[in-house]
């Protein structure tokens, strides 16, 4: 039952509503059975039912009445409380008029019910928004409350914002990491689920970076703080999520504009509807009744609340999967995204090089052994990939000479190992067998004789192909931008099924390339750029929707992008797309449904088919249905 815990205000109102409902139905049913108006006879017979209903009316509506009076003093004419009061009091007045003039006594129940159901709707709105606020607040659970800072050799609890860069903090198992830092002592596992949506815990040891907002699971860590609280990941993320609802989407702007004109127009028509036909037919009570029904439907609340609620739920749902969306407008835009531009290294590929092929296959071991001897001392990514592949400790004792732009020469006891590119082989007149594969090729020769070659490529991420396929299937264009040469680019593009690629680009060319694409696209097209946030901030900002991957720990990426995939996993893209689509579908459903129902009820009550009961459905019922619909956004994906 804990899930349904209510705020104090909601609980109080719920009790009030239940009491009023019980009383109302008790009176209503007795009225239908024995007709309360006939209990007493005579011209004052209407007073008895009137008093009973008035009690219920006051129980349920005293606050609405009070607010209406107060707001009218402030000059707020189109206040919903005021309009509701006019409608219900008007209905009471009509019923009294009928009673006084000796017509059949009816209408008290209606007046009372309208306000009662209005309150039910209000309560439900408050409940629903409170709940979705809570689901976002769950994400806010990442906010650390304190830090155990070591000062003068003693640990003391302080607010995270009081800790300076360079200070040491202790993080016990079960505690949240309060600030970004580097592990000074200890090893543990961290739960980063709340940050990245990644359920696999992360291992950290001395020297590893820890990110604020993750939870320490197994053992105590001593951490040196590297960022002030306001600069740390957790603050950045909280700030981002909290301000997400400030970036308003087109749909929301449309609704606020609509609401601005809707109420005055409906009220205006209601006045005309009461006066004009009233004057003509002098059947005042019928037309005033219809006008009052108008007032009941005049509040645009269903729309005004359900649209931002849908976006809010969409953004919340995405954040549960480690996808941060900076505003409803980006969610809206992302839904119609039809061009995805990818940075290659680090986005489509892992960004780390690996030995893909060694030839000839028969001498694989020897080639790798010799290459490792030559390359083990270098910090170049290519060299690293070779030593990583070799795994063991290469034979030592060689004198290594770096031949700039060609490779490495290793010498020991008259043995000479040459390890490098084609140029190195040619210069030394070695008859090498060219490797035709795409990537960087390292040739190995020993004592003037060719031994073999290694093909090194940047590994494509395992999920890349599937994701590109999914995006293509959604009808999007997928384009890769890369600094690699044409041959590598085209082979990679073919392998993973991209619809296009641009090769041989320098970092600054990427912005130009994206600008060209932006200029060429139509008004309704939306271009997304997906990068790892490292040195592509200008492109992220320039594109319609900038998406940064692996955002945890990279401030530049979080700042420059519109959507951040906290987990370094491309599958976040189709997932975000599904969330965006569902959100937008529900938004459109709610807009159309609410407007159609309201207009229909307005027309029906103008011609006298709909009564006030239906009108109250037009107000409250529509709001409740729209809110329930909006809550569907926050489901599983």
């Amino acid at each position, binding site marked *: 039952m804990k899930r349904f815990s209510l705020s104090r205000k909601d609980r109080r109102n719920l009790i009030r509503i239940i009491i009023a409902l019980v009383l109302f139905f008790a009176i209503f049913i007795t009225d239908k059975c024995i007709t309360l108006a006939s209990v007493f006879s005579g011209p004052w017979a209407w007073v008895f039912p009137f008093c009973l209903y008035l009690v219920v009316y006051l129980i349920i509506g005293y606050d609405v009445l009070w607010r209406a009076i*107060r707001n009218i003093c*402030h*000059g*707020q004419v189109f206040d919903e409380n005021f309009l509701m009061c006019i409608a219900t009091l008007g209905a009471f007045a009509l019923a009294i008029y009928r009673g006084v003039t000796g017509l059949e006594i009816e209408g008290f129940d209606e007046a009372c019910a309208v306000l009662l159901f209005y309150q039910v709707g209000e309560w439900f709105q408050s409940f629903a*928004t409170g709940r979705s606020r809570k689901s976002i607040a769950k994400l806010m659970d990442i906010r650390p409350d304190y830090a155990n800072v070591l000062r003068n050799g003693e640990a003391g609890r302080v607010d995270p914002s009081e800790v300076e860069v360079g200070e040491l903090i202790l993080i016990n198992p079960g505690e949240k990491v309060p600030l970004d830092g580097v592990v000074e002592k200890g090893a543990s596992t961290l739960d980063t689920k709340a940050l990245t949506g990644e359920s696999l815990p992360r291992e950290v040891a001395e020297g590893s970076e820890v990110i604020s907002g993750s939870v320490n699971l197994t053992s105590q860590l001593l951490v040196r703080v590297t960022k002030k609280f306001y600069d740390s990941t957790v603050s950045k993320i909280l700030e981002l999520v909290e301000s997400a*609802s400030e970036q308003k989407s087109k749909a929301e702007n449309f609704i*606020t504009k609509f*609401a601005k004109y809707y109420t005055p127009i409906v009220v205006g028509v209601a006045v005309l509807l009461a006066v004009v036909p009233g004057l003509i037919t002098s059947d005042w009570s019928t037309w005033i009744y219809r006008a009052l029904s108008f007032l009941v439907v005049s509040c645009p609340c269903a729309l005004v*609340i359900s649209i931002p609620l849908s976006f809010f739920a969409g953004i919340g749902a995405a954040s549960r999967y480690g996808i941060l969306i900076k505003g409803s407008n980006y969610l809206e835009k992302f839904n119609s995204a039809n061009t995805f531009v990818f940075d290659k290294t680090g986005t489509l590929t892992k960004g780390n090089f690996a030995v893909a092929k060694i030839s000839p296959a028969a001498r694989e071991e020897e080639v790798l052994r010799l290459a490792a001897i030559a390359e083990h001392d270098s910090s170049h990514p290519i060299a690293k990939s070779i030593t990583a592949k070799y795994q063991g400790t290469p034979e030592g004792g060689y004198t290594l000479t770096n031949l700039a732009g060609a490779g490495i020469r290793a010498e020991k006891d008259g043995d000479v190992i040459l390890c490098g590119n084609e140029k190195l082989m040619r210069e030394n007149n070695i008859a090498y067998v060219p490797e035709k594969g795409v990537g960087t090729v390292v040739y190995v020769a020993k004592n003037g004789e060719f031994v073999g070659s290694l093909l090194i490529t940047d590994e494509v991420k395992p999920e890349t192909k599937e994701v590109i396929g999914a995006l293509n299937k959604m009808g999007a264009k997928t384009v890769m931008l890369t600094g690699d040469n044409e041959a590598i680019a085209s082979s990679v593009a073919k392998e993973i099924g991209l619809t296009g690629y641009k090769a041989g680009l320098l970092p600054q060319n990427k912005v130009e390339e994206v600008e060209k694409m932006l200029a060429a696209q139509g008004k309704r097209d939306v271009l997304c750029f997906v990068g790892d946030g490292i040195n592509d901030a200008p492109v992220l900002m320039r594109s319609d929707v900038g998406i940064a991957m692996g955002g945890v720990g990279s401030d530049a990426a979080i700042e420059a992008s519109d959507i951040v995939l906290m987990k370094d996993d491309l599958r976040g893209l189709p997932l975000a797309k599904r969330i965006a689509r569902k959100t937008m579908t529900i938004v459109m459903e709610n807009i159309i449904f609410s407007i159609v129902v309201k207009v229909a009820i307005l027309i029906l009550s103008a011609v006298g088919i709909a009564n006030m009961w239906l009108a109250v459905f037009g107000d409250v019922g529509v709001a409740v249905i729209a809110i329930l619909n909006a809550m569907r956004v926050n489901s599983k994906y």
Partner: protein
Amino acid sequence: MKKVYQLEDLDCANCAAKMERAIAKIEGVESVSVSFLSQRLSIEAEEEQFEEIMDKVVKVCKKVEPDCIIHR
């Protein structure tokens, strides 16, 4: 200068929209956003007159939604 304030008891979405419109009309306010869902008011205004402008903001909000409190 941009500042964010927490709001309390902002009960209706339409009021939030009304408050936003009313605040936007105050002189010196560059941009404003009232979020009903996160119960936040974020406002960007001239630095020198910020306090004066905020006084006006509070007054305007009182008019639209008397129950709503701006935590300053």
